[in-house]
C-alpha cells in the first residue's frame, strides 16, 4: 500500500513538472531612452534574467542596475550614485502575469500579441504596470518583446531642477529577450 502511494506521488510530481514548462533567459536585453530637450540618454543592459511559467502565465524579470552601460562613464556614475542609488537598490524587477496564458502556446511556432500585467519595482518603489507584449515562437525558442514608458518621479527618483532639461520626465523602456526551455539548461 505504501509503495502504491509513493508511486502515485512520484507520478503526480513528474506530471506537474511536465505541465509546468518553464522558459528562461539570463541575457535578456533591457534598454531605456530619455529624450530631453538638451540631452538624449540611452543605456543598455544585456544581463537581464527572466523566467516564464507557460502553464499559468506567471513571469518574472530582474536586472542589476549597475549592469546598465552608458555611452558616457560619468552618466553611468551619476545614474548609479545620484539617481538610482544602486548600492541601496541594486536590482529592478518585474513580477507579473501574461494575459490569457491559455492562448499562448510556447511550444508551437507563431506570433502572439498579448498583455502583461504586474508589479514593477525600481529604486525600491513598486508600481503596477500593464504593457502590450509580443511573443514569437520559432523552433522552441521564444522571443519576448515589450515597450512601455514610465514616469521617473513615480519611482521616487528626484531630478534636480538644474538638470531638468537634460533628463526626460518620461523614460521609454525597451525589452527584448530570447527564452529557452528550462530543460535546455544544464
Amino acid at each position, binding site marked *: *500500500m*505504501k509503495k502504491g*502511494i509513493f508511486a*502515485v*506521488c512520484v507520478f*503526480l510530481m513528474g506530471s*506537474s513538472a511536465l505541465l*509546468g514548462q*518553464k522558459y*528562461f533567459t*539570463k541575457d535578456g536585453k533591457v534598454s531605456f531612452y530619455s529624450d530631453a530637450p538638451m540631452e538624449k540618454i540611452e543605456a*543598455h543592459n544585456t*544581463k537581464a*534574467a*527572466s*523566467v*516564464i*511559467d507557460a502553464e*499559468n502565465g*506567471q*513571469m*518574472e524579470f*530582474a536586472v*542589476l542596475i*549597475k*549592469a546598465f*552601460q*552608458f*555611452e*558616457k*562613464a*560619468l552618466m*553611468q*556614475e*551619476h545614474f*548609479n*550614485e*545620484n539617481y538610482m*542609488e544602486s*548600492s*541601496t537598490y*541594486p536590482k529592478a*524587477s518585474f513580477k507579473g502575469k501574461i494575459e490569457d496564458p491559455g492562448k499562448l502556446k510556447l511550444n508551437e511556432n507563431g506570433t502572439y500579441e498579448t498583455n502583461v500585467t504586474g508589479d514593477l519595482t525600481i529604486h525600491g518603489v513598486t508600481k503596477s504596470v500593464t504593457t502590450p507584449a509580443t511573443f514569437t515562437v520559432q523552433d522552441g525558442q521564444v522571443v519576448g518583446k515589450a515597450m512601455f514608458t514610465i514616469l521617473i518621479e513615480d519611482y521616487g527618483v528626484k531630478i*534636480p531642477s*538644474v*538638470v531638468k532639461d*537634460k533628463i526626460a520626465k518620461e523614460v521609454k523602456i525597451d525589452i527584448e529577450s530570447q527564452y529557452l526551455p*528550462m530543460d535546455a*539548461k544544464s
Partner: protein
Amino acid sequence: MWRIQVVLLLAFSAVSDAYGQDTDLLSLLGNDDVTEYATAAFKTNRVINLHSLESTAGGVLDFKINHRFGFINGGPYEFFGLDNAMMRLGFDYGITDQLTVGIGRSSFQKSFDGFLKYKILRQSTGKKVMPVTLAVLASSSLNSVKWADPTRDNYFSSRLFYTYQLIVGRKFSDRLSLQLSPTLVHRNLVATRAEKNDVYALGAAGRIKLTNRLAINAEYIYVLPDQLGPDYHNSLSVGVDIETGGHVFQLHFTNSTSMIEKGFITETVGQWEKGGIHFGFNVSRVFTIVDRTKHR
C-alpha cells in the same frame, strides 16, 4: 492508516501547490553570483592635492584647472591672499578604466609634470571579494625656473623630481571612503646636505559624502622625520567637493602652495596655526572621447 496517508498526501500537494505559486521563478535560475565593483569612492581622481584611489574612466579626458590663492595671513593688504594666485592646468586621460596618464603645467616654479597611474586591484563584492582598491602612481616633474646662480655648473637633471606612490583605500560605505598613500619622493638636487634626496612620507585621506552632490574631503601627509629642512611642514588640506553635471568643483583650504606631488609633500612652507593657509579650488571637467558602449 490508509486515510491518514491520503489526507497527508492531499495536504502535501496543497502545500506544494501553494508553494509553487509563491516561489520566485527567478530562483530556478540558481544563484549566479556576479562580481560587483565599488565605484565612486571619491568624486574625482584627486582628493585635494593627493591622487585619490579613483582613476579617470577609459576614453575620458579630464581637464583640470587648479588655483591656490596667496596665504590668508597676507591680511587685508593682500586681500587675504586673493590678490595672488598659483595655477596648474592639466589634462588627465583614461587609456583604460585602470590606466590613467596625465600632464600639467604649474605657474609655481614654472613646472611641467606628468604621471602614470594604474589600478592594480579593485574593491569588489560578490563572486570575487576584494576588500580594498590598490593603485600605483609614478609622477615626475621638471622645474624650469632660470638657474639661481648661472655661473656655477648646472645640470639639467637637477631640475627633475620623481614621485612613487601606492594608494590603498576602501569605500567603507556610501558616505565614507578612506585611503593611505605611502610615498617616496626623489629629488635629484637638494639645497643642503641635511636634506635628503629620497623623502619617505605617508599620506592619509578621506571623504564623507553629505548629499549626492556634496562631500567633505580631508588629507594629511606625514613626512617621516629628519628628511626635510626646518622650514618645511606636513601638508594638511580640507575642502568640499561640489558636483554639477559634468563638473566637479573642489574648494579647499591648504597650507601647500604647489599642486604637484614633490611640491606639496616636500616643499610645504605654510603653517596652519600661523594662518599660512591658501584658499584654493580645483575644477574638473570631463569630456567623453571614446563612446563606452563601443569601447567595450
